[in-house]
């Protein structure tokens, strides 16, 4: 019985994706003004590509939430890494390096993300203040650092080598899609095949028991916050390599979109339960919905309404399926 329910729950998001595909390709194609069918190969490729920025962050958020923590600062980290990426390429010594500046700029941006994550992690570890509050503060603080660079002006730097790289298609898939799938694969291995992954579930399930079992919770948290900082930066690197211009308000509310995707994938806020693959499903489901509603000619604003209501509906359904052991938010 439990097995049946588990399968139902972990498969639910993929069922939902199939439903979306069926709905938009059967009903959607009749309503649509475009000649292209919804299921067109190009359209599906775009869905994957556009899932990448939020998706890469959401994958990291899954681990944070399995831990029983949350990270509200990822949107600001995303913007900060983007600014570092574009700004650093305009420095004189970097410009002198030609295209070799690109890997260095990437490195700077990714290091920035890791550093921001480490700051959050060490505060959570050493002060014992809940991650919700620590990262809520950091969301404001990091955004302040973003504004330090160019005030409210956008930062732009277009490097055509970089744009070519970001727009390239390898084996049919876009660069961003490869990063999304690669991240998912690595994190899936991390969570299912390594000690770190098992510890993450153990800590989220019962922190006291994990401590008694000899797991060092503090450093574990720290690693995971560094990981999500890295991923937020990676997401920025992938996205801004192509767009080449960052607005200081970019990435706002990304934390909330990422959490939405994670919750749609079935991960529990209370920790101890969740999976990387289901989050990938959640991310794709949201992007399909956006694309699909656009396809049938619905206004873009409807998307917000529908996603919000679906999120609540999922919660109601989950409650019906899982009356016992209902996790409540641990703060």
């Amino acid at each position, binding site marked *: 019985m439990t097995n049946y329910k588990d399968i139902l729950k972990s498969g639910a998001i993929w069922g939902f994706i199939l439903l979306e595909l069926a709905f938009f390709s059967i009903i959607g194609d009749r309503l649509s003004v475009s000649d292209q069918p919804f299921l067109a190969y190009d359209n599906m490729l775009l869905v994957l590509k556009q899932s990448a920025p939020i998706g890469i962050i959401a994958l990291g958020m899954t681990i944070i939430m399995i831990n029983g923590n949350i990270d*509200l600062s990822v949107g600001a980290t995303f913007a900060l890494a983007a600014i570092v990426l574009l700004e650093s390429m305009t420095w004189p010594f970097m410009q002198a390096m030609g295209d070799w500046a690109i890997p260095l700029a990437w490195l700077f941006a990714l290091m920035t993300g890791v550093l921001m994550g480490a700051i959050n992690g060490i505060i959570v570890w050493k002060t*014992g203040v809940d991650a919700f509050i620590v990262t809520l503060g*950091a969301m404001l603080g990091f955004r302040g650092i973003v504004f330090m660079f160019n005030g409210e002006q956008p930062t732009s730097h277009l490097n055509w080598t970089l744009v070519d790289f970001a727009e390239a298609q390898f084996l049919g898939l876009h660069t961003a899609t490869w990063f999304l799938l690669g991240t998912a694969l690595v994190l899936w291995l991390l969570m299912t095949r390594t000690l770190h992954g098992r510890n993450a579930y153990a800590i989220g399930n019962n922190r006291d028991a994990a401590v008694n079992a000899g797991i060092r919770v*503090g450093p574990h948290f720290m690693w995971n916050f560094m990981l999500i900082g890295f991923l937020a930066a990676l997401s920025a690197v992938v996205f801004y390599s192509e767009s080449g211009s960052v607005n200081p308000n970019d990435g706002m509310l990304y934390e909330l979109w990422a959490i939405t995707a994670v919750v749609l994938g079935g991960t529990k806020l209370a920790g101890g339960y969740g999976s990387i693959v289901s989050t990938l499903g959640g991310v794709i489901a949201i992007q399909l919905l956006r694309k699909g509603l656009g396809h049938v000619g619905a206004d873009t604003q409807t998307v917000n309404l529908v996603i919000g209501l679906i999120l609540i509906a999922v919660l*109601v359904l989950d409650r019906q399926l899982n009356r016992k052991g209902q996790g409540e938010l641990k703060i």
Partner: protein
Amino acid sequence: MQMTRQEVGKLLAKQGILIAFVVFMIGFALANQRFIGIDNVAGVIRSSAILGVMALGVTFVVIGGNLDLSVGSMMSFSTIVVLDLHDKIGPALAIPAMFALTLCLGAFIGFLVGYLKLNSLIVTLGMLSAIHGLTLTWSGGKNMDIADKAGTWFSFFGQDRIMGIPVPILIFALLAAGLTLLLSKTPFGRKVYAVGGNGQAATFSGIPRARVVFYTYLISAFCVAVAGLLQASRSLGSQNTVGQGMELEVLAAVILGGASLLGGSGTVFKTVIGVLILGFIQNGLLLVGLDFYVQYIVTWAIIILAVWLDVAAKRGRLWSPIA
């Protein structure tokens, strides 16, 4: 010696935020005389009033042990709705209609969190998105403006003064006073604390947990409606995203005031202090000539320090026991 140190710790934990506020004010007043000038103080309170009004409502929700992340987009909604209806049915009808609609949204959230016992973080996260969609649908994505800006009495709430006091300050003060009474002097207020402090114990002692939570969201929605009215009346025109991101600033103010996210603690007065601290930090740092973004970084430090002190005093040691 040990005793006194503990007492100091307790005092810091209990009134730390107030002490910090006073120290902060004195420091900035010494740095710049204009800081405590009556014009400046009134200006700060006036510009904090909208955030403050929303924070008052969220205080109830947080004390009840829940979160409300939807207040920002709900404020955009009420602002857009009242501006739109102003030209269609006149301000006298538009205001009650907007209050009714906003309260409906609050009731819906209250129903989901209170009666269906769904997780408040996710419900209000979903509502953040859903209400944003609702606002955009209502306005068609366009900015909303009142046609005859000079000839309407609607600007009274955001722009006028009564006996020299700006109306937003009066409304903020009155609402704060009323809600203080509600929270500290009535059975309902005590029930909110009981539900947030220990929901199960509250249920066993016969307190209708679901109904109390439901009412906290109604109060929050009412405050949001007031904030939307102030915002609309102040600018007489608005974008669809006017309240975007405010949910987290509001929460920061409430936490800064010392309300625990676990529920069961916090007061309206402390939230007002939290709001004022945010407002005065912003203003003070600008007055001493620092760039605007410094306030974000300082707010970050202050939020974490405030909560850290609070947590440390409760557990009796500074550093966390996490291994």
